[in-house]
């Protein structure tokens, strides 16, 4: 079990405990978000990350603060793991002025320039193209950053996947393409959508290294990502990583998931819960106790409750902000203007 030894050896007890806390936090955050959604405080779509915590925590723990991530619409967990305050994420979910995108983005459009989170992207596949461009900027400017694109199993069937992988490989860009394969693109099972059983031949088609990892094993994900990120940072080009995971809830909160069996769901939730698996592992290694687990849950609940309270008490966006930030150039935001001033249609 070389991977286990390296991974555990690579992290201190404090780091392992922090990793457990972060996974607990993003699960409790999503459970709270589901509650806020059911109360009608969150509108639109709400895509929860519950079940995929090990994947995100492993991926992002392998990155430096200056590394970019470009994510999908299932990005609340990624945002928090990248360092965003749960408060500003929750406030964005509630469409408040204090949200990271000032209430104009919502669940699918978290962004933080400070934390190099280049968006939750709600056009599937765009995050690969954008990450490729970021990779080019990194290479052009001689920076030591890496751009990581996070996408689901549906994105690999988009044209952008192929155009992005080809160019990134051709130009040896410092990009890591990570497919968080949660087995379903909305209601479409991977087995029905892919002409091949894994992404390996797709990576091979672009001459790119491929790594497949159990996305329910946070240390394995981290280990795989450390190698892919180092490869990119050293100028060796992109890697395609497939992290196999499972979302415990529907595609969004509007989805009852009739396309999969309750038995299948139960199997993943009981035998493969990533947080439970990690706890078992940490107990075996003598890193964590039930008492510490309880403390983490309690702390996470406090943070999440505080985030919800902050969001609920935050002001709605100023009506005047409707016209703000369309463009950098405020004169260019509106299609036309007259001497009477810029009309607002």
């Amino acid at each position: 079990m070389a991977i286990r030894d390296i991974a555990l050896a690579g992290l201190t007890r404090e780091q392992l405990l922090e990793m457990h806390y972060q996974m607990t936090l993003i699960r409790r955050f999503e459970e709270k978000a589901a509650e806020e959604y059911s109360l009608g405080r969150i509108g639109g779509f709400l895509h929860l990350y519950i079940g995929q915590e090990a994947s995100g925590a492993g991926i992002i723990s392998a990155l430096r603060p200056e590394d970019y991530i470009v994510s999908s619409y299932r990005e609340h967990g990624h945002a928090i793991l990248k360092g965003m305050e749960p408060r500003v994420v929750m406030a964005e979910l509630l469409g408040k002025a204090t949200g990271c995108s000032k209430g104009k983005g919502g669940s699918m459009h978290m962004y933080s320039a400070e934390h190099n989170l280049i968006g939750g992207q709600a056009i599937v596949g765009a995050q690969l193209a954008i990450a490729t461009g970021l990779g080019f900027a990194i290479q052009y400017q001689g920076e030591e950053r890496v751009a990581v694109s996070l996408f689901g199993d549906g994105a690999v069937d988009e044209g952008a996947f192929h155009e992005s992988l080809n160019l990134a490989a051709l130009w040896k860009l410092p990009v890591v393409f990570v497919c968080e394969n949660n087995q379903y693109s909305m209601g479409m099972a991977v087995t029905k959508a892919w002409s091949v059983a894994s992404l390996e031949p797709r990576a091979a088609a672009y001459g790119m290294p491929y790594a497949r990892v159990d996305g329910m094993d946070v240390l394995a994900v981290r280990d795989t990502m450390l190698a892919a990120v180092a490869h990119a940072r050293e100028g060796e080009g992109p890697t395609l990583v497939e992290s196999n995971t499972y979302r415990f809830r529907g595609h969004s909160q509007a989805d009852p998931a009739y396309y999969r069996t309750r038995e299948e769901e139960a199997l993943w939730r009981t035998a493969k819960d990533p947080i439970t698996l990690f706890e078992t592992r940490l107990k075996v290694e003598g890193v964590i106790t039930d008492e510490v687990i309880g403390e983490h849950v309690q702390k996470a609940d406090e943070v999440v409750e505080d985030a919800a309270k902050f969001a609920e008490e935050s002001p709605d966006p100023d009506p005047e902000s409707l016209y703000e930030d369309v463009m950098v150039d405020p004169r260019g935001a509106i299609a036309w203007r007259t001497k009477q001033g810029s009309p607002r249609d």
Partner: protein
Amino acid sequence: MRTITYRDALREAIREEMRSDERVYILGEDIAGYGGTYAVTKGLFEEFGEKRVKDTPLAEEIIIGTAIGSALGGLRPIAELMTMNFSLLASDLLVNSAAKFRYMFGGQPRIPMVVRMPAGGGAQRGAQHSQFFESWYAHIPGLKLVMPATPYDAKGMLKAAIRDDDPVLFIEHELLYSVKGEVPDEDVEYTVPLDRGEIKREGRDVTLVTFSRMVHICQQAAEELAKDGVEAEVLDLRSIRPIDLDLVLDSVRKTNRVVIAEEGWKYYGTGQGIAALIYEHAFDYLDAPVGHVTGKDVPMPYAKSLEKAALPSYADVIAAVKAIVPARTLAAGAR
């Protein structure tokens, strides 16, 4: 002043901005060794090298994705799409990413990106290579869209677009590349704003609102109309979004008659949008319905005779003007 082609003017703009700003680079299909499909980027690879002149695969989506991502990462890309027709393959990223990011991410990102693309018909390139989609993009808040008609404006507006912090779509008519015009000497620095039209010819009887290659056709038509005593004012919009509506309304208030001339299709397009703005803001000044000269409502045919019939002509402009100027103006001209 020198006289150079529209193509050379564009190249000068790119070269000057690349010399003065290391962050500026160009990417597109066959822009390096080949020098660009229309030879706009010829010689730039030799001067700036592989790092800053990037030949890409035939993959419009990732050309624009690379441009957007690299702009977010601190660069100032100039992407060339081989023609506007192929922009549809990248239109998702133009519409859903370039135009939206700043707003939907609460004003955090900026995307200083220029996308250059030739467009238009008249060279027998057939239905899939002769189109104007500017109205589709001009519909989208978050984008700027310009269509200069002269070498002077091409250079000045491209320099302004490269320096602009927002995404700018820069649309060049294929038949303008070899058109010559006066441009200041190379050591004379100038830019042309991205939000101002220009009066190309003053007149009292009718306003011709136009852009891109139709500017030249309208100027010819105005000369011909003058022989019949009709003094047409020719407005080159230069920018479609934002549009310099003051320029249009001031002229309409003076002439009380207007003909919009464009090469694209009539229905739901740029001209109808402008006509609606004129009716909305200058209805009381109009002495006749707004005239409209456009391409015919068909896919572009290949045969030379059919293509000619499908494109708006100088005679169409004259006929549209004569249909709305009063008989007394024409009669006075005849005397």
